[in-house]
């Protein structure tokens, strides 16, 4: 690169220094409150190891329930290799995948680089640190693994869709499964829907399904790939919106199941 010495003689310096007169701090503040609230709640919920299922409802924080004692469990019991010093919670076995997907998501990177790490806290506003490495070195170079988390996130959409279908199957007095619908069924149906709108607008998926191609008409399955790329692009335009809606949706789904399981909320059954 050519040499360029910036003479910032005309500008303010230091953390938060700016000539901006709008409420530039409001966005980062709201974002940090939203993100930290979710992180605190989800961490607390993940370590509870209880009240994550109520009848046909299973909290998405604990899905897939790899180890457990209920009808939702893939394997009954708890793993023998689980460390004794750590209380068992099935959520800890699965939450790393959707958590990693959101942690490395291009939208959330923007959100927390700005609101938490303040690099920069807002556009044209002074930063707290002079040093900067970007995503060139460890640990942030690991953000390039986002595509692998995206593949896992797609699998999770399938698992949560299966949970949504199961949420309509209630065990009757005769012990058999009967089709029905409660408020929880709607909550657990909206959850994978919102997650799907977020996940299928992912930048890495957009690249995978066709974005990497310069010439669709010269490629194998070019027309199909162009259609897939176009569809992902439509969702990608509102990636931020779906990121927040799905974050709220998955958090509320856990709260709903937890409250019903604890007996604080009564699940209204429509039929």
């Amino acid at each position, binding site marked *: 690169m050519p040499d360029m010495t910036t003479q910032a003689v005309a500008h303010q310096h230091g953390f938060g220094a700016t000539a901006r007169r709008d409420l530039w701090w409001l966005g980062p503040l709201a974002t940090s409150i939203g993100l930290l609230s979710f992180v605190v709640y989800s961490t607390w919920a993940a370590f509870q190891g209880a009240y994550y299922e109520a009848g046909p409802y299973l909290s998405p924080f604990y899905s897939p329930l790899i180890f457990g004692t209920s009808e939702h469990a893939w394997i009954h019991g708890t793993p023998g290799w689980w460390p004794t010093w750590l209380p068992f919670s099935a959520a800890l076995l699965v939450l790393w995948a959707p958590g990693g997907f959101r942690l490395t998501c291009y939208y959330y990177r923007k959100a927390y680089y700005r609101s938490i790490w303040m690099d920069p806290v807002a556009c044209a506003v002074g930063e707290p640190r002079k040093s900067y490495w970007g995503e060139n070195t460890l640990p942030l170079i690991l953000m390039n*693994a986002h595509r692998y988390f995206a593949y896992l996130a797609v699998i999770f959409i399938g698992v949560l869709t299966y949970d949504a279908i199961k949420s309509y199957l209630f065990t009757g007095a005769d012990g058999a499964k009967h089709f029905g619908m409660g408020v929880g069924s709607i909550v657990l149906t909206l959850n994978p829907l919102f997650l799907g709108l977020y996940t299928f607008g992912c930048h890495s998926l957009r690249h995978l399904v066709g*974005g990497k191609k310069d010439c669709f008409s010269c490629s194998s399955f070019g027309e199909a790939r162009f259609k897939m790329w176009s569809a992902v692009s439509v969702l990608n335009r509102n990636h931020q919106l779906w990121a927040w809606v799905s974050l709220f949706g998955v958090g509320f789904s856990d709260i709903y199941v937890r409250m019903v399981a604890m007996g604080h909320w009564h699940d209204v059954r429509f039929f």
Partner: protein
Amino acid sequence: MAADNEPTSRPNNEVQPPFVHTASAPKPGTVAEALGRRDFKVWRGNALGGGYKDYTAEISAGMVVLDAVHQIQATQAGDLACRWNCKAGKCGSCSAEINGKPRLMCMTRMETLPEGTVTIQPMKAFKPIKDLVTDVSWNYEVKKKIAPFKPKAPEADGTWRMQQFEVERVQEFRKCIECFLCQDTCHVLRDHGKHEVFAGPRFFVHAAQLEMHPLDTVNREPFLKHDGGIGFCNITKCCTEVCPEHIKITDNAIIPLKERVADTYYDPLVRLWRWAFKKGEQPVEPKA
């Protein structure tokens, strides 16, 4: 530095102050609604230093900040330097920072600014030459480092064919007017001064325009990873926010390029696939 863009309908002997030469000026026969006087703080100086000076301007409906600057030039500070040309948001000359935000002066209407003194500064990411004029020549040097368009061999009839739906993606990038507001607001350049190792959003848009062209044959991933320093971008989208052409710089140019770089340099499965089946797709690394 002002270009001569006088309207042809004006009588030859009529002299008008420069601040009425604007697309947003009132039509002939009408009187612009006076909005009162506004105070301005304009940075005056050069690469060695300077400071803010106070001015006032009479504001009428439809005026843009560039009109006010021209009024100040005409009435109070004849030596105030400001680069401008088209007054239509298409030449990219009048970039500055208005109330701390990188914007085109010709596209910022006075009535959209909050009450109080309006602060006008030159772009922070570039060395000041005089007053509001900065030295943006560094950008042109960066551009020279990006391999130009090189089409594949023409078809048998000697021509090239491409589908409209395939070039629409890169046509968005061709809207760029090189105002360099994205470069100015990018904190990698603005706050960290990494001009030697980072090309900046403008040139990622340029690289994307070439790289994603259906007929192009050059692989610019080595440039993007090494000289272009795309890894320094932490996708905070300030470039997208200030783009006067509303190019989705981050979503449509930078992130797709970061994904391509990830394919080549960071994804072991893609590297294995290419090694096994598509050896010709490996980029040529630059010489040390």
